[in-house]
């Protein structure tokens, strides 16, 4: 137990180090955007009819701490984020990023995790079934679906669904809330309304994740299925579902759990584009808006950082889960620890 907690601590420290590195990448990125925050904000004021001088900009820079060296500003930013959970202030809007994001971030994360769950709920049984039956027709069909999942990016799927629903129902199925609930506080009715809208982005985001997961599960199971220990188990008289669940499926579980983090990464990739098409008002759309329209690097950086942090969090969680589930890894930790 002591060794296990030591493993968890080590893994946690590693996650923090990765997080720091990512924060450095993201921070550098926001720094590379031409013109700093003070200049951008004052230029914006200028368009509102206020006269801005160079001295004003310098004063603003000092007020915002932009005159300090790069590394110090990074340390400040990271410390604010990690210790106080304060993501800083939006460049243009002059509102705290935390207030801007609000629960939008959690809604997006929820949608993404739900689509990931959907992907595996479909992929695990279907993948196992297709790996163990030798129906070439079914297998070729599944292979084709998997390839299509890659070749038809989610945004095309979203467009097709929109096209179909506009023609068939006269409703383009966009948005996350009905009009009357958009600004309302969370309540049961609002939640129900949310679920009524959220299923579409969940399915669309889950589409290519499902295709990928299907391929992974199939490949893993069919790899394991040909191995000698399965033959040995069969020789001992095990067959059918018992054989499958006791041996190959358990073996394949490790790599699947391991790949969850990267699956989440892939889903995040699609999020802003889907958000644009379906006019969802959550973090993905906010990211797009902050980048495409207002060039608001503070906000964009914060969103990318939050997305990456949740991937790192998931990776940490799956590693610990794997150590709990897989006796080989557990022994590795105990043995060497």
């Amino acid at each position: 137990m002591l060794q296990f907690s030591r493993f968890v601590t080590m893994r946690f420290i590693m996650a923090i180090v990765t997080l720091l590195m990512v924060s450095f990448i993201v921070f550098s990125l926001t720094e590379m955007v031409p013109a700093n925050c003070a200049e951008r904000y004052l230029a914006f004021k200028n368009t509102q009819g206020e006269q801005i001088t160079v001295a004003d900009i310098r004063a603003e820079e000092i007020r915002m701490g932009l005159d300090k060296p790069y590394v110090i500003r990074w340390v400040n930013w990271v410390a604010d984020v990690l210790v106080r959970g304060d993501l800083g202030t939006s460049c243009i809007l002059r509102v705290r990023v935390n207030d801007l994001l609000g629960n939008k971030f959690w809604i997006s994360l929820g949608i993404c995790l739900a689509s990931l769950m959907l992907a595996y709920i479909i992929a695990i049984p279907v993948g196992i079934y297709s790996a163990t039956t030798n129906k070439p027709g079914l297998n070729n069909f599944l292979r084709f679906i998997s390839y299509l999942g890659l070749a038809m990016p989610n945004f095309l799927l979203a467009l097709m669904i929109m096209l179909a629903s506009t023609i068939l129902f006269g409703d383009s199925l966009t948005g996350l809330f009905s009009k009357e609930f958009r600004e309302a506080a969370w309540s049961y009715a609002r939640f129900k309304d949310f679920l009524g809208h959220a299923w579409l982005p969940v399915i669309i985001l889950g589409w290519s994740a499902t295709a990928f997961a299907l391929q992974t599960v199939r490949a893993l199971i069919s790899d394991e299925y040909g191995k000698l220990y399965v033959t040995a188990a069969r020789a001992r008289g095990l067959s059918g579902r018992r054989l499958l669940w006791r041996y190959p499926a358990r073996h394949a579980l490790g790599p699947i759990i391991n790949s969850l983090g990267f699956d989440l990464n892939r889903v995040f990739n699609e999020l802003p584009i889907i958000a644009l098409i379906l006019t969802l008002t959550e973090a993905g759309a906010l990211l797009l808006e902050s980048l495409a329209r207002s060039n608001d690097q503070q906000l964009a950086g914060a969103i990318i950082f939050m997305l990456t942090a949740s991937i790192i969090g998931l990776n940490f969680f799956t590693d610990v889960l794997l150590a709990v589930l897989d006796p080989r890894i557990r022994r590795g930790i105990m043995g060497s620890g």
Partner: protein
Amino acid sequence: MVDTPHTSGTGNVIDVEAERKSKEAYFTAGQYALIWARFKKNRSAMAAGVILIILILMGITAPFLSPYDPNIAGRDADYQNGAPQIPKFWDENGFSFRPFLYTLERKRSAATNFRWVTEVNKDQRRYVQYFVKGWKFYILNIDLDLPGDTFDFRLKALPIDTHLFGMDKGNIHLFGTESAGKDIFSRTMFAIWTSLAVGTIGVFIGFVLALMIGGVSGYAGGWVDSILQMITDAVRTVPAIPLFMALAAMVPDEWSAQTRFFFISIILGLIGWPTLARRIRTHLLTERSQEYVLAAQLCGASAGHIIRRHLLPSFSSYIIVDLVISFPYMVLSETALSFIGLGLKDPVNSLGVLLQNVTKVDVLLNYQWYFIPAGFFMALVLAFVFVGDGLRDAADPYSGH
């Protein structure tokens, strides 16, 4: 892999001889000959390969295939948002060897309430002509406009003005036209070219970076490897598209379309390296401790000699396969970026740019031919994926066939 010889006992001498020869050829074949032999057996990969070659040829010969200039200069002002025109060989007026279209007449009169309407005149045929002279395309047309004047560079040479097909009178729009009257067929051809070019540059830059980082990491090992792997992992964790978006948002609006194009390709390469770097490192780490490397070292071979003569050939086929596999991701990323308006922009035609306008309800309901480029895009990505998978199976001597 190789068919087991038929030992039918009373085998014909010539057959046995031929079989021995083919076995001999198989055992002495080089690595690439073996890969090709295995690849040929994979029917879906071969079919995808043919489609891929056709698409690449379409991209390369885009200026020749396109009857009109894909940009605003080639617009057809009389046929905006026009439906696709499919040439016919036959109608109620009889058969013609040369495919033809009907003449469209724009009229307005009291009968039409003085609005312009387009009418089809079935009696006036327009015939398709081949190898017609048309708009001029310059093969060498470089217009580099970086910030500052020193690096500006302009060159226009080698014009082409012969095109595969055109009409004797009026215009032909195989895939219809968009809102400004630009020919969607010509735009699609050029878009295939652009997407391929972006992908190639992106893959190349990613490859060079991956080779350097993965190579150093794998060959040096130890703490260098640990540090480089941590950095690679950190870069890999950041979701790529949001990262692309952030980088692409840095492009100033006043950059020319071509400069933008190069910048976007470079970004794709700069983010695409980690997966490949990791693979190269893993290959190097495993190969470096193999016995044949030790044998070479004992024979007194230098490090450079070992890398060049033993290590590189041992995984060059894997690298080629990896490059083919990573190609569709580049095309996908570019399309996604352009689609949301942060990638390439209008004068440059890429598949993402062509799909930019399709989200409008107007288009969804009335002008569905805007979606035609999406079909080409999917064919391109699917072809690459199938060929990549086929190559991977063929390059792996242990893939169980």
